[in-house]
């Protein structure tokens, strides 16, 4: 988009010749610092909400607006500009003709009106006025904005603007020095740029001219009356808008809805300062060649180093230090490369404790004073890196030990991020920083810079929802624990920075958080006054007027009333923008939900699982409808039955085991035994090597046991790898041989050759044989392989297929899922976390069933207790139910008792459930009931 177009849409003009007053829509009478800030905020917000807000043109415009604001905020330059403005308005200095201190337009008269009573505005102003009206398509909000901007551009005060609008029909129809009755102009309305008029006397006779004049007069009167009927209400609206922005509201002209408390006088409400948006995001670029060279050298040198020497350590220190400082500026590929090289170094050189400690300490140095911009970015990176390294089970034991120590310093308790997820872990670290950062708002001069660094990190590792949730959580804490933002510029700047990542118009989380602040007694009324004033003035939430601004002395009752009013206004605004679910979709959903809830509970585990999945589809559809994705919901529900049926039809594949052995079992064993007893080593070895030529596929139990015994305990030892090779090469599909091998393995005895053979046979990556859990994992891999070959694992394949479908359906609830979920417990955990993220900004006075931190705590305990696949899924399912209830109760305080009853009855139903599958169904149905309540459906009782 071009700068001119952007100007036109934002300022209502394409001209770049605008003075500071005009640019900001101010006058010398209204240019106190808070007016300037308000105007600046308003214009920047308008640019930010523009679809092309990220274009360079928008940045240019932002810079111009900020420069104008800076001029007007400076007392000296403001005085000079005011003097220029007054001179221009009341008595143009010689050689100057502008009606306002602009470099465009001209006025032949210092008076706003001509002696004839017709308005005497410069043609450029009137043209802009008309252009604004026409381009907006009539009298509407867009026209209002553009007209105000046009007035501001030409330095026309609010009263004069009203006057101009009221007289516009006359003005437009009456070019200067043109009599009202006379030859009508042609060309453009208003005739400012009209072609020369035709001489009517040449065409009409005197009588005809008289009649024409009468008709013209009549038509002009009609046109005037019609226009006045339209213009006057609109003008009142414009005046109201001017009053919102101006210092002296005129209640008589506003049509604001009555507020329960007297509207706040703006002059008493300090406004939020501005934080430049570009400060909050960093340009991302590939890694510099120098740094890439460092990594390359580190990778190469560590690969050939036998131990950690000083040179490699220095390279590692350089890489990790730069990583800590600059990781946010790297693109994804560069970040990945950095992680890979550092982890590879740990694999190669972290084999002894000293080296491992040296390396890990560089990644996560001990920083008692981390509260600096570098400290914040570094700490987030460190925790992210630790999470990545925690994912590496095959790291040398000393390295793992040191990493775990560091990890638990950062993640001691609670619900830690899952290891392996850099972004998730970094976000966790950033969340942990919120409380200490809030403390800086009072004490640290550089608090704003710290918060900006924090926000930059957040933006790097979060999607928009996650960043918004963290920002809202932080804002809440600043409002509760920080200094009064009406008195502290620093606090105000922090809040403004945090608000910059919130999508007020579209985000349900933002709505919930903001409304919760009205409920939160620890958020002072003066803070709410600033916040509400900002929301109203910036248009962050459309359709609000100053009756929504909280008075600084508002009591609990007034706050509650304003909260309710805001909630209602916001809901309708959301509906207008398509964010609230449509009634028909919800109604259809509820009808279907009722049918599902009325379905009698079946008895067999598989039938119960099918019922659970059907309800899970319903709940996923609810989340889609709520997220304004009704088409997705409809598609999901339309496919539900077919997908369930397909999963149920899954049958077990035929066992992959080899054909049963043919011939006498034990013959080979006798031959081998004899050769062994007679010390015929070559003969014994040959027998082991050639057995597969005689017996294909699998061995009988006796031969299998003897061959496995040779592989594990054969003497001389040289025969063991031969036997292992025979097993891995020829009997990888032989359940008898493999089961014998598994059953004869001795705990605590590890063998690299055996480990390699098992990896070849099973395809499972095993840990280093010296690690403690090697035996367990190696044997489990073999047993799984054997069970699979025997068909034991797939005897009830439909259950597993249904479980996978359940995971997929849960995964569909996730707003930010990557790939299809196949693990039901993991999918349920993610669904729970999604609810938590929704609920995190909400701070209900009476949380249900418990405060959020306690819900998290309970979830962690349940997941630890229920440690099998079905139990763990159920644990996260119950956690989701609790978190969903929390969110719904916070959104609908009136439904709190209903939700509480629902949770109680669910507990009872779970307790009397016959089996785990019925418990899954009960929990999933309870979640459906919560959705019904969230959709505003009154409880109808009944079984579920």
């Amino acid at each position, binding site marked *: 988009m071009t700068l001119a177009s952007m100007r036109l849409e934002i300022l209502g003009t394409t001209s770049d010749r605008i003075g500071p007053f005009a640019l900001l829509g101010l006058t010398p009478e209204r240019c106190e610092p808070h007016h300037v800030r308000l105007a600046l905020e308003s214009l920047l917000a308008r640019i930010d909400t523009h679809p092309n807000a990220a274009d360079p043109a928008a940045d240019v415009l932002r810079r111009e607006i900020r420069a104008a604001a800076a001029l007007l905020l400076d007392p000296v330059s403001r005085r000079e500009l005011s003097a220029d403005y007054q001179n221009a308005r009341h008595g143009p200095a010689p050689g100057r003709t502008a009606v306002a201190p602009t470099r465009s337009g001209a006025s032949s008269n210092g008076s706003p009106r001509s002696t004839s009573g017709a308005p005497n505005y410069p043609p450029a102003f009137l043209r802009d006025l008309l252009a604004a009206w026409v381009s907006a398509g009539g009298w509407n909000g867009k026209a209002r904005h553009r007209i105000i901007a046009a007035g501001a551009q030409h330095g026309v005060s609010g009263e004069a603007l009203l006057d101009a609008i009221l007289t516009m029909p006359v003005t437009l129809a009456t070019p200067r020095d043109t009599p009202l009755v006379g030859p009508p102009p042609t060309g453009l309305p208003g005739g400012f740029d009209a072609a020369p008029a035709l001489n009517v006397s040449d065409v009409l006779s005197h009588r005809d001219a008289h009649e024409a004049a009468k008709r013209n007069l009549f038509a002009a009167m009609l046109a005037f009356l019609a226009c006045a009927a339209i213009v006057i209400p609109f003008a009142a609206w414009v005046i109201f808008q001017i009053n919102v922005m101006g210092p002296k509201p005129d209640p008589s002209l506003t049509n604001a809805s009555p507020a329960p408390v007297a509207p706040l006088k703006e002059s008493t409400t300090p406004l939020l300062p501005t934080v430049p948006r570009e400060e909050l995001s960093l340009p991302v670029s590939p890694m510099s060649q120098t740094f890439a060279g460092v990594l390359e050298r580190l990778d190469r040198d560590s690969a050939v180093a036998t131990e950690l020497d000083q040179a490699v350590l220095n390279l590692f220190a350089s890489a990790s230090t730069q990583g800590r400082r600059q990781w946010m500026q790297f693109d994804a590929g560069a970040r990945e490369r950095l992680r890979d090289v550092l982890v590879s170094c740990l694999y190669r050189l972290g084999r002894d404790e000293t080296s491992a400690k040296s390396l890990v300490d560089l990644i996560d140095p001990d920083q008692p004073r981390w509260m600096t911009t570098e400290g914040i970015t570094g700490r987030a990176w460190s925790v992210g890196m630790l999470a990545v390294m925690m994912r590496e089970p095959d790291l040398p034991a000393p390295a793992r030990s040191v990493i775990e120590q560091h990890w638990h310093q950062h993640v001691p*308790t609670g619900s830690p991020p899952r290891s392996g997820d850099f972004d998730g872990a970094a976000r966790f670290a950033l969340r942990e920083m919120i409380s200490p950062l809030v403390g800086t708002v009072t004490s640290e001069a550089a608090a704003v810079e710290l918060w900006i660094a924090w926000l930059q990190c957040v933006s790097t590792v979060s999607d928009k929802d996650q960043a918004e949730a963290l920002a809202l959580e932080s804002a809440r804490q600043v409002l509760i624990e920080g200094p009064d933002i009406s008195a502290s510029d620093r606090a105000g700047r922090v809040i403004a920075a945090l608000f910059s990542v919130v999508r007020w118009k579209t985000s349900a989380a933002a709505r919930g958080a903001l409304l919760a602040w009205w409920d939160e007694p620890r958020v002072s009324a003066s803070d709410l006054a600033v916040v509400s004033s900002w929301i109203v003035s910036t248009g962050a939430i459309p359709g609000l007027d100053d009756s929504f601004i909280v008075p600084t002395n508002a009591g609990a009752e007034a706050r509650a009333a304003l909260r309710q009013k805001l909630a209602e206004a916001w809901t309708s605004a959301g509906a207008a923008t398509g964010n609230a679910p449509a009634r028909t979709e919800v109604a259809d959903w509820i009808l279907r939900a009722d049918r599902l809830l009325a379905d009698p509970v079946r008895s067999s585990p598989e039938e119960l699982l099918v019922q659970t999945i059907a309800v899970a589809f319903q709940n996923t559809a609810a989340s889609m409808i709520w997220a304004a994705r009704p088409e997705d919901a409809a598609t999901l529900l339309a496919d539900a039955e077919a997908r369930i049926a397909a999963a149920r039809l899954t049958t077990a594949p035929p066992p992959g085991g080899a054909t049963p052995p043919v011939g006498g079992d034990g013959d080979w064993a006798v031959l081998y035994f004899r050769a062994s007893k007679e010390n015929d080593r070559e003969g014994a070895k040959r027998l082991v090597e050639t057995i597969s030529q005689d017996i294909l596929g699998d061995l009988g139990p006796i031969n299998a*046991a003897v061959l496995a015994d040779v592989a594990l305990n054969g003497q001389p030892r040289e025969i063991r790898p031969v036997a292992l090779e025979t097993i891995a090469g020829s009997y990888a599909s032989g359940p008898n041989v493999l089961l014998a091998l598994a059953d004869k393995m001795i705990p605590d005895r590890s063998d690299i050759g055996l480990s390699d053979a098992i990896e070849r046979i099973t395809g499972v990556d095993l840990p280093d044989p010296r690690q403690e859990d090697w035996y367990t994992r190696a044997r*489990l891999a073999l047993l799984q392989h054997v069970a699979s070959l025997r068909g034991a694992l797939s*005897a009830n394949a439909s259950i597993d297929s249904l479980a996978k479908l359940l995971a997929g359906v849960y995964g569909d609830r996730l707003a930010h899922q990557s790939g299809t979920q196949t693990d039901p417990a993991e999918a349920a955990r993610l669904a729970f976390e999604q609810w938590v993220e929704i609920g995190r900004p909400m701070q209900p006075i009476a949380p249900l069933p418990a405060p959020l931190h306690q819900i998290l705590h309970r979830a962690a*305990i349940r997941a630890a207790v229920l440690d099998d696949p079905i139990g763990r899924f159920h644990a996260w399912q119950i956690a989701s139910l609790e978190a969903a209830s929390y969110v719904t109760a916070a959104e609908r305080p009136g439904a709190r008792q209903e939700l509480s009853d629902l949770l109680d009855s669910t507990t009872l139903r779970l307790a*009397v459930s*016959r*089996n785990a599958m019925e418990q899954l169904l009960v929990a999933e149905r309870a979640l459906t009931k919560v959705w019904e309540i969230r959709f505003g459906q009154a409880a109808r009782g009944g079984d579920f």
Partner: protein
Amino acid sequence: MRLAARHILMAMALLAPVRLAAAQSPPSAPPDVNEPTTTQPAVPASPLPSMDARLERLSPSNPGAYFLLGEEAIDEGQLDLAIHLFVLAARMDGEHFGRSACLALAEIEKRRGRLIEERDLRSLAGLLGDTERTDSPDTLGLRSAEREYRRSAALLSAMLGFYRQGDGQKALAALELNDATERLVKEFGRSFGSIGRIISFCRNYPRCPTCRNERIIKCPSCRGGAAPGQCSLCGGQHFIVCNLCGGEPGEHISPADLDAMLLFEVALQSGDKASWSARIAVDQARARPVLDLTMLPRWYEINTTLTVYRNGEWTLP
């Protein structure tokens, strides 16, 4: 630490059927004990007059007194009475006494060797706790218990492997008696026959007495000295398959039992990564414990509406 065979005997004694039965009862389908009745026999009848007097002084307006008297009952060895009092205290004022009552009940269950109940009660106490520092899965020992559980599952699986190979001696050596093993046996002891029976078999069958599990023995007919083709038994091979165990020492295991055993081992060792079908095959989708304070009366079948003690009975206030 490994246990010798005599320790296994002790283990078998610990894993008595009575306790196995008890383990399966608590969370599932108890009767609705909150049906209003007028009286309920005290559990048990107070053996000491002084305790009776103290019981009669209790009032629902002071739930703390129930809890304190429960502690005194423990000191006096009246565990059933203590349980009753703790459950009443927890139900009357869960906010203040719920967590403490659960911990006290867990201690009682530990004394009684009911490990599953103890774990569930500790977990419930953790749920009721407010601070992650004191009641995290780590501090409650849940994670370490899970690790121990997995390790015991692996050792139990190893034991079953040696049992399948007919090596009772190694099987018993692999089995480690600890709380986790006991929990495993309690939870899944009946998955395929009975683990107790398997342990018993291993005790009686350390190995094949003839071949000592080598499966092949020297030909008893020719003593390994016959020329080729001359011995009718070994055909001159000097060795034959063990004539006692037939080359397959140990107990005959049917294919179905073998599959069930494999599923059991795979499901337990895979933890939450096991397949759902394997898990259902192992535990028949038994109901999971409902960790909620309201469940306490159901677990112990105590009518918590009867809160006043009069004439040796709990009655309505």
